[in-house]
């Protein structure tokens, strides 16, 4: 599935990969989350890998979006795992995080 703002690819064994591009607007997550969950439901996805390799800054707005998306995934029985977070991004994000995030993290796709 390709959109101006992201790529969503079905992998094997109920897994999918989400690659956001610059078009993703974290300030307006509702439509995006519904669109994605709809597609993931059709694919019977159990694990969603959210690729952060191109996300250089995760500010409070983007973090809120990630948490909201992860909770929505959990409701749909999907585990959202953020991968490929860059050192600088993790460094900055850890400074303004006051509680653990709602999403899981991993170095890459297992």
């Amino acid at each position, binding site marked *: 599935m390709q959109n101006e703002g992201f790529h969503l690819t079905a992998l094997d064994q109920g897994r999918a990969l989400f690659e956001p591009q610059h078009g993703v607007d974290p300030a307006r997550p509702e439509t995006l989350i519904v669109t994605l969950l709809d597609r993931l439901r059709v694919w019977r996805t159990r694990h969603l890998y959210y690729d952060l390799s191109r996300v250089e800054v995760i500010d409070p707005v983007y973090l809120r979006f990630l948490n909201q998306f992860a909770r929505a995934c959990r409701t749909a029985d999907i585990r959202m795992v953020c991968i490929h977070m860059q*050192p600088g991004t*993790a460094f900055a994000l850890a400074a303004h995080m006051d509680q653990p995030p709602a999403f899981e993290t*991993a*170095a890459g796709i297992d």
Partner: protein
Amino acid sequence: METQKTTEKLSALFKLAMGDIGAALEKPAQTYFGGSANLLDDNEITDLSLELRYLISGLIGAADPFSRSSPEFRALESFFTNLARKVLTRGGKVDDIVRYTQNLQETLIRALEQDSGIEFTRSRSVLHYFSNIFIELILAVFRAYLDQKDETIRTQESELRETSTPITEIWDGVLTLPIIGTLDSSRTMILMESLLNRISIEHTKVVVMDLTGVNSIDSQVSHHLIQMVRAVQLMGSDAILTGIRPEIARALTSLNIDLGDIVTRGSLSDGLKAAFKMLGIQVSPATAH
């Protein structure tokens, strides 16, 4: 009026053949930097004296020889700064550079007296002029000396920081980080930067942070600690805190800091066992044949 007279005298000096004083300027350099001191070789001393003669004649012949901001004075000052750096880098002492500068002043005045036939000991204005110039040049030497000392201290601090926080890959995918002393903001930043880069490069699975060497903890330090653990987790690695002393544990609870979602172990050894368990690795004694 006095300044004008001095300028005229200086202009008269400038008209002299400065080439004759070149050989005289080499002597102080030979005394302090050449021969057994072995800080500059003969060619360097000759070049240095030629450049010095050119710079001094430039200053004396400048539109305003008294100005400390003229290009001619700046060039002479820069020459002394570079000379001091070179000599200090080669193991010379600041004392020798200062003595060289003083000796150079005396030599220069003597050489100009001989060349011009004017007895400067009777001309206080000219002596005063050269004295002021050379005080500035000695200050330039001291500034170069202090800059070099500052640079040495910075390098040593950097080396100390690196050696006080050695990040070691103790097993494939397992990094250990013994933290010793106090975690302040700048140290945390340096530590986090190098740790997160290592995690990214080496695809680290588990980081064991050992706090055995941490004697005290306050709210700021504990905040930095939690921040480090969070950043490691965000990179997709597991973090294990080990060696938390009873005083530190008590301090953390009194600061209302909950380590409930962070894996902790009593000692570094237990932390490593936990890391191996997370990776599905079992370490057992070798069987005797």
